[in-house]
Structure formats: C-alpha cells, structure tokens
C-alpha cells in the first residue's frame, strides 16, 4: 500500500512539473499559430502558419504588424559569427597562458575575468553607452559586436582555460624534447587535444551573442535590430510574431546546449541571456 502511495505521489509530481515547465512553451507555440483567439476560449479558434511564413520571408503580407525577420536574422548571424571569431582569437591565447604558465599577478588576471560574473552588468553597458556615444560607436554594428565580445570573452577564457588545464603538460614537453618549437608543440599537440573543448566554447560564445539582449538594448537601439530586439519590439502589439521569434531563438539554444553541456561546468550555463 505504502509503495503504491509513493509511486502515485511521484507520478503526480511528474505531471505537475511537466505542466509547469511545458505550459509557458505551449503558450508560446499556440500564440505563434493563433489567427483567432478570443477570450475566454482556452485554445485558439482558428490556427494558421501564416505568421511563420511571413516572419521567415516566405510570404509577403500587408497585414498590420507583419514583420519579416529575415534581415534581423541575417544581422544576428553576422554579429554572432564575427563575435565568435574575434572573441575566440582573444580568448584561446589567454586561456592557454593562464593554464600553462606561472604568472606573477595571476590572481589579478583571474579576478578580472571573474568580475563580470560577480556583479550586475547593466551599469557597465550604461557607461559603455556614454563612452561609445562620445566616439561614435553607439547605434552601430561594431559597437554591438564589442558588447557581445565582452559578454562572450569571459566564458571563452574560462572554458578554454579549463580545457587546456585538462591536458597534461608532459605531452607538450615530450614534443619540445624532440625538437619542436613552442608554437609547433602547441599547434600539433595541445590544439588537437583541446579541439572539443574549444569547439564547445565557440558554440557557447555564439549562443550568448545570438541571445544577448541587455547590452544590445542600450548600445544598439534604435538602429541595430537583432533578433532578440525585434522580439522585444513586436512583443507589445504583436504576440504572434514575438512568439515566432522566441521559438526561433529557443530551438538552437536548447539543441546546442544539449550537445555541449557535458563539456561545460554547470555554473556557466546559468549566465545566458
């Protein structure tokens, strides 16, 4: 009897958690296809995939509020890819140096890359806005990229650092002892061994850029409309399009994170968006 009671309590918990976790996502999906959804109906009366078609530029519509997200999507991709390239080009050497060398003032350097996780970042964006306004970077694509690099760099350094730390130094030393230069030892030994970790870190930086909202909001508005900002600006009056964009952002985040989660420390994944 006791066992049956326990089992049913467990099942009830499962159903409850399932409903709470899945409910908001279902709401998002229903809104993305709801053509007619008049209160107090629990479900939309008429559904259509037109909003998806319009948002993805497959269909042009003159309906009020219809947005094409193709340009925002292209811009977001462009910014994300550039961010990954630049942030990783800076992060990989730093992560490697922190892992392999005994650095005087090393603690201060570590401290520097931990600060953004310990303090709220919004006041930083506000002050960067002031600086960028003075030098003409506010409201420009390079300005937004710099913000995304800032957000991604910290994770990039930490993840690559952890990756290089996990490679025993004896491997590179062996290569050096048979005459390889420091660069060749790195290029031929450490880099291939670190490749999965570096790839995960690049994917992570890509996602932080794709989903970045707060910094872009301050630096980019009103000229730079990335996907998250288009989501925000249609959210007020156009639930359908906002929901379509939200789902388009949701899918890659969940898929990629499931792919790379094993390589990541738990605390990184909480810092997104």
């Amino acid at each position: 009897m006791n066992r049956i009671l326990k089992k049913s309590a467990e099942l009830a918990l499962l159903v409850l958690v399932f409903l709470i976790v899945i409910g908001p996502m279902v709401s998002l999906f229903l809104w993305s296809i709801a053509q007619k959804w008049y209160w107090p109906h629990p479900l939309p009366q008429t559904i259509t995939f037109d909003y998806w078609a319009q948002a993805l530029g497959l269909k042009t519509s003159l309906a009020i509020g219809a947005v094409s997200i193709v340009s925002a999507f292209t811009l977001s991709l462009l910014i994300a890819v550039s961010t990954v390239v630049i942030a990783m080009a800076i992060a990989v050497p730093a992560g490697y140096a922190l892992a392999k060398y005994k650095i005087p003032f090393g603690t201060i350097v570590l401290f520097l890359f931990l600060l953004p996780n310990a303090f709220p970042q919004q006041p930083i964006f506000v002050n960067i806005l002031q600086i960028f306004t003075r030098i003409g970077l506010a409201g420009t694509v390079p300005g937004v990229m710099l913000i995304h690099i800032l957000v991604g760099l910290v994770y990039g350094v930490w993840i690559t650092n952890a990756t290089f730390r996990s490679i025993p130094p004896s491997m590179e030393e062996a290569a050096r002892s048979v005459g390889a230069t420091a660069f060749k030892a790195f290029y031929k030994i450490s880099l291939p061994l670190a490749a999965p970790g570096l790839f995960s870190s690049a994917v992570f930086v890509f996602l932080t850029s794709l989903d970045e909202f707060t910094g872009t909001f301050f630096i980019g508005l009103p000229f730079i409309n990335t996907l998250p900002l288009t989501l925000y600006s249609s959210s007020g009056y156009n639930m359908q399009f906002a929901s379509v964009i939200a789902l388009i952002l949701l899918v890659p985040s969940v898929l990629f994170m499931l792919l790379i989660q094993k390589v990541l420390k738990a605390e990184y994944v909480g810092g997104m968006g």
Partner: protein
Amino acid sequence: MTSKGSRALGERKLPPYIPLLFPAVAFMVLMYVWPFISSVIQSFLVEDQPSLANYVKVWELYRKDIVFTFAVTLFNTALTGVVAVMFSVYFRLRQNRISALLSAIFKLPIFIPFVVVSQMMNSFLAPHGLLNTALAQLGIVNLEKPLQLFNFTGLSFGFAWKQIPFAVLIIHGGFQMIDNSYIEAARSVGAKMPSIILRVLVPMNKSSIIVALVLVYSQIIGTFTLPYMLIGGKVPTTITVDIAHRVNYFRDFGVANALGVCSYIMVLFTAAYYLRSKIREARQEVSG
C-alpha cells in the same frame, strides 16, 4: 612580419604569456574595468561637480523599487534554495524511470535564454493568458476576475521557472559526490530519512548549495529582461528597469549610475564570496 616580431620580443626577453594575455586583458580593462570605475565615479558627479544629489534622487524616487528588488531577490533565492535542495535530494535517492524523466524535463529551462523566457511568461501569465484560461477550465479561477500576475508573483514564477532547474543542476552535482556508504551508515544507526537528509546530505553538500544560491541571488539582482517585459514601468518595479528608464527617457546617467552602485552594494557579500571561492579553487588547481 612574424620573425621580426618574435626577434623584437626575444631581445626584450618578454615572457611568452605577456603577448598571449595582452589582448584579452587590454580588452577587459577598456571594456569592463574602465566603465565599472566610471559608473562609481559618475554616480557622485552632477555637472562635473562632486555631489550626492544623484543618491538623494534615488532615495526620493526609487527607494520603493530598491526594497521591491531586494524582496523579489531574497524571496526567490530562498524559494529556489528550498525547492532545489528537495528535488536534488529526490534525484539523489530515487533512481527510476520517473525521476529520470523528471530530471530530463528539468534541463529544458536552463538552456532557454532569458529574453525567450520573458516572452513566454508575458503570454503565459497574462490576465487572459494560457494559465488563467487553463485554471478557469478547472474551475479554480473566475475569468471575470483573472489572476493578475504582472507583479511580484508573476516575476517570481518566471525567476523560479528559470532558476530552480539551474540550482538543481549545481546542487545535484554536489550530492552525487556523496558516497552511498554515508547514507547506509546513518541508516544502520537508526536515523530516519528526514534526519539523514538534514544532518548528513545537506551539511556534506553545503558548498555547492551556497554556490548555487550566490549565483541565483546575483543573477536575479542583475536581470533586466524579465522585469522589463513583465512589469515595465509600473510601480513598484526593479532597479534594472529604473536604470533603463533613467537612460532612455531622461539621458540621466548620474541617477542611473547611482542606482547601479546600489545594485553593486546589494551583491557585495555574494560577489566577495564568489570571487574568493573561485580564486581559491583556481589556486588549488595550480598547486595540485
């Protein structure tokens, strides 16, 4: 180009880590340290003169919002702590198909970015949103008077939805390190389950519970998207929303920075704990 560069480096006997670290460190100094220091200095300046006027304005206009932010943060950190520890204990002690399914479901919210969570909650928690209509179908809510959730309650629902699974990920990881023999030993001397949990499991996993709570706490204080899209400019709202209003509507960077410094002060203890524990961890890895 390369050979010339390396010769120049060789002549000055520059240690190799300097050129490797320089770009990243220089970037952080320009894009993080400078704005950080500037935010503190600017909060004490009015028209380039030292003044406390910004803080006076914060006190006059926003003290309710500071209390609100603090209340939301404390409530959600406590809620997350209690619920996440309960689920983590459950996942540690019960390994069957139901708990495996549950832990899979729990992974989803962690990976969904805040901007998407905000839009979800915006539609889900609306007066005529899915939650209210679903509860009405069950007869719990009268749709003439739907639950108003664009406030403390809804904000907490959104934070809990996102942060509890994240905390479970960290705390459960800690519980998995505890060997079964401890639980069996406690059981063999006659300890009941609740006291095993409270006297053995939780104390042994104290450090990961604290780390999870520290991260959740500082994240909630700094989150802009969710309160902005859920509550916006209504009173009371969070500091992050006030900062955005100060900047966007008034171009008033002084008061925005004073509010920013208030949020720094709120995370001072958690930030100190986080930095200290991370640096200690890094040092141990180097020496070990």
